[in-house]
């Protein structure tokens, strides 16, 4: 069959030619059409095109008119600002003459050399963009005119370098970094702060770099002035201006590699860095300053495994470092991880199968795990992988089925009774449902994990009692333990928390939270708590114990430094949400430990 010849149909003809009657009868609301639209179908394609063109022209003229108006606003504003600048120049000359001519010549010449972003930064330094509430400062604006990398004012140098390196957007790299540095150093308001990235760092700078900005300063609360023990050191201010150095992440490299790069920079003679006089001797920066080529590996290793840095998680995973991340020092002298991925304060857990540094977990005892004698406890079927989570490598916990007894004639314990013929391996950090009883008047309860590891020998699982060799717990050790338990400060007032753990309010104890991520001291007087902390840290020097400050409001971390229990600055909320929460609560510090946090009695 012969096909009809193809007709060359133009698009507009498809739309316009032979309009469907149903379509053209639709009522299209068009205001004051220049060309009346008829609903008949008598128009030719050419007529329809003209009608539509007329409508388009009208629309275009409206748009162009708006654009013209906008252009007028712009041009007029531009003109105004040019005139205003001239007025000011004249005023400067009139009122100040040659005395200050240099200042304004300096401003004029240098301002023109600034990039767009730096000029915007000048505006910010002058208080623009924050509703007039931010600090407005001529020196801050002048920062843009000088050699910024050499300027130390406002902590800008380190801030700038830190951000400059973390910016990946090329073109605006320098300016973006500068903008951030100025924003934070100028003390921006909440609304402005919420707009920008890097809230974590911003909060930090507001707290430490801008002490005169009282509105934004978070003052450290008072810590107990009671010094119950000569080895308990009162807190001191250790806020420092950190050196403007950083270590960038590299593919395939871990924290330890990065920390070592920091150490190298600190010791680079060209940098002329010195440890700030008020630096906390227990801070990372102090440790790195002190470390030499022989000791650095060990120091780096210890820093990397310190849970305070959050490099390792209690579940054994480590935090993933993005290639845009970097390490630098904070004003507390501690190493901080920051970067594009971690600006909001979120940490990314490494996937299960991703490689982790084979660093023993900081909570791990110094002795190898496999040497820890586990009394009549079968080896867990699941192999322990490194880094070991704290619960798996804590000192062995004698299960609740094994009450620990001391004979009436203390100090030497004789038996560890087990009512169960067979004891299953204990779950990590499973607290006994009820504390074991002290079986005689003079028999203090010694929690299982307080017993020296060697005091518990493997025992046949089929026997009910275990006779501990007398030499495994010395008289002195027991004598040290007895007084604190025999002489509570008052009749214990017991709180039963949500875990069912009974917590005496008047007797100090060390507790672990759920998952045993943190240790707390609770109960008793400040003096009793301090003594308890010292005693515990002496036995466990790598640990950190959190307690309450003198007012019982904020959380204070305690460390052992050279045999002394040393409190640090109150623990602060972390991350974006922590910071936001602190804004609304008016307090950036973490609350003092509360009984409901305790899942396990440690001491």
């Amino acid at each position, binding site marked *: 069959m012969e096909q009809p010849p193809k007709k060359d149909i133009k698009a507009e003809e498809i739309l316009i030619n032979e309009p469907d009657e149903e379509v053209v009868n639709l009522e299209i609301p068009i205001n004051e059409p220049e060309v009346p639209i008829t609903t008949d179908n008598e128009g030719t394609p050419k007529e329809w095109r003209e009608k539509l063109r007329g409508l388009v022209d009208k629309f275009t003229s409206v748009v162009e008119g708006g654009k013209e108006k*906008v252009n007028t*606003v*712009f041009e007029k*504003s*531009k003109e*105004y*600002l*040019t005139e*205003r*600048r001239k007025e*000011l*120049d004249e*005023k*400067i000359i009139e*009122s*100040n003459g040659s*005395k*200050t*001519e*240099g*200042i*304004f010549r*300096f*401003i004029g010449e240098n*301002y023109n050399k600034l990039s*767009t*972003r730096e*000029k*915007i930064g*000048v*505006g*910010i330094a*002058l*208080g*623009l*963009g*924050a*509703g*007039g509430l931010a*600090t*407005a*400062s*001529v*020196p*801050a*604006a*002048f920062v843009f*005119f*000088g050699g910024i990398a050499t*300027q*130390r*004012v406002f902590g800008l140098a380190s801030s700038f370098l830190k951000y400059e390196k973390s*910016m990946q957007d090329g073109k*605006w790299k320098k*300016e*973006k970094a500068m*903008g951030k540095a100025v924003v934070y150093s100028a003390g921006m308001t909440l609304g402005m702060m919420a*707009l*920008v*990235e890097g809230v974590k760092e911003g909060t930090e700078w507001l707290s430490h770099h801008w002490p005169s900005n009282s509105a934004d300063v978070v003052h450290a609360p008072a810590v107990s002035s009671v010094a119950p023990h000569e080895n308990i050191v009162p807190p001191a201010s250790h806020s420092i201006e950190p050196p403007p150095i950083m270590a960038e992440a590299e593919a395939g490299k871990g924290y330890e590699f990065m920390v070592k790069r920091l150490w190298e920079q600190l010791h680079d003679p060209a940098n002329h860095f010195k440890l700030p006089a008020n630096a906390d001797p227990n801070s990372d920066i102090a440790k790195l300053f002190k470390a030499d080529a022989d000791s650095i590996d060990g120091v780096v290793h210890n820093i990397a495994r310190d849970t305070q840095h959050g490099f390792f998680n209690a579940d054994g995973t480590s935090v993933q470092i993005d290639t845009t991340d970097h390490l630098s020092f904070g004003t507390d002298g501690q190493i901080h991880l920051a970067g594009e991925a971690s600006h909001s304060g979120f940490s990314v857990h490494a996937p299960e199968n991703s490689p982790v540094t084979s660093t023993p977990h900081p909570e791990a005892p110094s002795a190898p795990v496999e040497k820890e004698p586990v009394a009549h406890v079968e080896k867990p079927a699941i192999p322990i992988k490194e880094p070991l989570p704290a619960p798996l490598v804590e000192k062995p916990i004698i299960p609740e089925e094994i009450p620990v007894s001391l004979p009436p004639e203390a100090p030497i314990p004789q038996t560890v009774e087990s009512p169960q013929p067979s004891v299953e391996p204990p779950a990590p950090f499973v607290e006994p449902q009820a504390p074991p009883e002290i079986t005689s008047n003079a028999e203090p309860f010694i929690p299982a994990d307080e017993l020296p590891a060697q005091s518990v020998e493997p025992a046949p699982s089929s026997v009910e009692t275990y006779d501990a060799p007398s030499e495994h717990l010395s008289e002195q050790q027991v004598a040290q333990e007895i007084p604190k338990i025999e002489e509570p400060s008052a009749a214990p007032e017991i709180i039963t928390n949500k875990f069912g753990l009974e917590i005496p309010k008047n007797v100090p104890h060390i507790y672990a939270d759920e998952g045993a991520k943190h240790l707390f001291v609770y109960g008793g007087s400040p003096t009793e708590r301090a003594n308890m902390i010292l005693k515990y840290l002496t036995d466990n020097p790598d640990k950190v114990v959190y307690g309450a400050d003198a007012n019982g409001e904020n959380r204070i971390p305690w460390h052992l430094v050279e045999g002394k229990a040393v409190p640090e600055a109150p623990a602060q909320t972390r991350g974006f949400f922590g910071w936001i929460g602190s804004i609304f609560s008016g307090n950036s510090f973490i609350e003092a430990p509360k009984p409901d946090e305790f899942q396990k009695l440690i001491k």
Partner: protein
Amino acid sequence: MIPPMQDELTAAIATDLGIASLPIEEQQTLIMQFGEVALKAATLSVVEKLSEEKRSEFAKLSESGDVLAIKTFLDREIPDHENIVKAAVAEEIKRFKEFQAK
């Protein structure tokens, strides 16, 4: 593409100046111009508080570009210099907005 943070900063300043409805490039142009005006006005307001002798000293410090020295000097000579600057900048914003309202 303008980095988000800078975009937001620009937007915040543009809002202060009442030019947020303009295209971003034009906002930036005006902000840059305004920055110079504001800086000169702010500096002038500070300088006017100084004696002639101190003005010379301030001039030398400014030309040296030593920001820390400038800050130390102003903190000592005009403890309230930040509020003075703030007022000067606020006055320039007000003038600019009044002009736009005409």
